């Protein structure tokens, strides 16, 4: 049964269903329950933005609030995963990765390879990404490229409630560590989501709009901006094909390359900074593999090479806009 629910609810439902299905699934993080040790309501917060709210009532101590010690509890999730559990640890904001990255990239990501295939580490790290929240330089970053660079990690970034549910379920069932990136500006966005449990396989991009003139490749919140740009361009009879990568590692090169072989034109859109980004990664791959198909130079629309500014006046121009995406697409048409 499909209903319209928000991405926040979809994530909550995925956690609920997987916890119900598999007793080895546990969930931990700062204030993911909330109210521990105090005199008021338990489950007072359900996470900083309420995503895990209500799960404590159903699953009790399998949700664990943590001290403010990301290395310790994310490392504990990694260790528990290596010992047969399937922990989902929340890193409240991806911006906090700097205090716990070792347990992610040197431990979780490397165990399987480093131990000759004799270990698996099915841990999921749920984390909030992205700008537009006026949350300034240390609470607004995208940082997906840093994780995508690291072998052994899988990196997921859904753009809507339906994908969020299916991809989170897949993340929990997957035997490798997964960085599950939730865009804080998408939590409230609703879409049709079946009640039943379902998993969306990794490495399958979604063609969210078909078109024959220009391919736009992106993920996360930028999918919506790309769709807006495509709608603008359609008025001028420029038909964009918009591809939502959904998972950045693994990445679905086939869908991207097929599309560019058709359109001959590509715009890579990334909310991350430009250098060594997902946008440059996709641009590089396409220019190498679809060289002969390209009718014009690939365009990139990214955040600038600056920290995220606080002021709304600056953050609004920091983030790639539909206008900039449309302009880039027009540029590929002009050449």
């Amino acid at each position, binding site marked *: 049964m499909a209903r319209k629910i928000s991405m926040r609810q979809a994530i909550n439902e995925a956690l609920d269903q997987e916890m119900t299905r598999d007793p080895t699934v546990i969930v931990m993080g700062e204030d993911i329950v*909330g109210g521990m*040790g105090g005199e008021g*309501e338990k489950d007072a*917060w359900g996470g900083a933005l309420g995503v895990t709210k209500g799960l404590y009532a159903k699953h009790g101590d399998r949700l664990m609030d943590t*001290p403010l010690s990301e290395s310790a509890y994310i490392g504990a999730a990694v260790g528990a995963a290596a010992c047969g559990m399937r922990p989902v640890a929340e890193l409240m904001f991806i911006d906090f990765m700097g205090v716990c990255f070792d347990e992610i990239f040197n431990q979780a990501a490397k165990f399987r390879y480093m131990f000759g295939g004799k270990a698996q580490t099915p841990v999921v790290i749920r984390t909030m990404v992205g700008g537009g929240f*006026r949350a300034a330089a240390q609470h607004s970053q995208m940082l997906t490229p840093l994780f995508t660079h690291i072998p052994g990690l899988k990196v997921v970034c859904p753009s809507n409630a339906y994908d969020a549910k299916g991809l989170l379920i897949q993340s929990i069932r997957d035997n490798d560590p997964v960085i599950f990136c939730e865009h804080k500006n998408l939590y409230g966005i609703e879409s049709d989501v079946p009640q039943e449990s379902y998993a969306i396989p990794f490495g399958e991009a979604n063609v969210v709009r078909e078109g024959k003139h220009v391919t736009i490749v992106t993920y996360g919140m930028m999918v919506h901006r790309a769709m807006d740009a495509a709608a603008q361009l359609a008025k001028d009879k420029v038909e964009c094909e918009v591809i939502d990568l959904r998972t950045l590692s693994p990445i679905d090169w086939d869908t991207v390359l097929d599309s560019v072989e058709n359109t001959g034109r590509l715009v890579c859109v990334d909310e991350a900074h430009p250098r060594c980004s997902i946008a440059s990664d996709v641009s590089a791959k396409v220019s190498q593999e679809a060289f002969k198909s390209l009718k014009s130079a690939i365009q990139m629309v990214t955040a600038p090479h600056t920290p995220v500014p606080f002021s709304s006046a600056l953050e609004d121009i920091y983030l790639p806009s539909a206008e900039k995406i449309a302009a880039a697409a027009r540029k590929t048409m002009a050449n």
Partner: protein
Amino acid sequence: MSKNPFPLDKQGLLEAYRTMRTIREFEERLHNEFAKGDIPGFVHLYAGEEASGTGIMMHLNDRDRIASTHRGHGHCIAKGVDVKGMMGEIYGKAMGSCRGKGGSMHIADLSKGMMGANGILGAGAPLACGAALAAKFRGDGGVGISFVGDGASNQGMFLESLNLAAVWNLPAIFVVENNGYAESTSRDYAVAVDSYVDRAAGFGLPGVTVDGTDFFAVYEAAGEIIKRAREGGGPALLECKMIRFFGHFEGDQQTYRGKGEVEHIRAQRDCIKLFSDKVVEAGVIKRPELEAIDKEVLKLIDEAVATAKAAPMPAPAELLTDVYVAY
């Protein structure tokens, strides 16, 4: 005029009062403006905790450095950062302390020795060690002070810093502002030791716990610790037990708090009330003198808000300045 039983002269007491009132007024106003929807982003208020920052900062000068937290407004004001610049910053305006680029969680003024509020918990502790190290190399008698909350006292960066400061015998001071909560999580749940004196001792540091709602207790304990650090006696930890008037951030419903908790603390444990009553009862200051300050503070905050609201946004070109833009 009766004899002054306090460790500060009348002028000092009035100054302390003014600082605390300014913080309180600043925060109460932000609370109201936020509720109207005028203020963007995450805002963490220091109301209720004024005695701590003020009692400590009264000992400092501009060459002493502090590294603050996400809950940094009070520290900024007590360290002498311009209030209008702060308000402008919180509104994201070009006249803000950081020209609108930082926001509430990143107000800084290096010229005042304020190394920044910080969105990353615990990150200030190493920075304060660095400030202390610089002071030591310069031999200028300066100190570096790091503020953390009870929650952040479990962060590795903070814990490592205690050890580093002791190993290097730095003039560094670690203030734990223990308000009983980290967001919605009680200190009793998350900090696995009853006394911060014991935590400090685990790193060879002397530790002191004071009632952080008692300005004088903070002032005296901090004075001793800071003096020792200035004289080469090394680092120390100071725990201020205190209370938070508002939610963790603006918008927090605070259902994790016990029934009547907020009402109780506002009535019984308001550090400014406690301070005022003491100085008035001792006959050192007259209530109208305090009320005169209240008025001036109110005017200052009114002006700050009005200025901030009216001020222009940063120009678009500002996006690409103050950083090397390699692309």
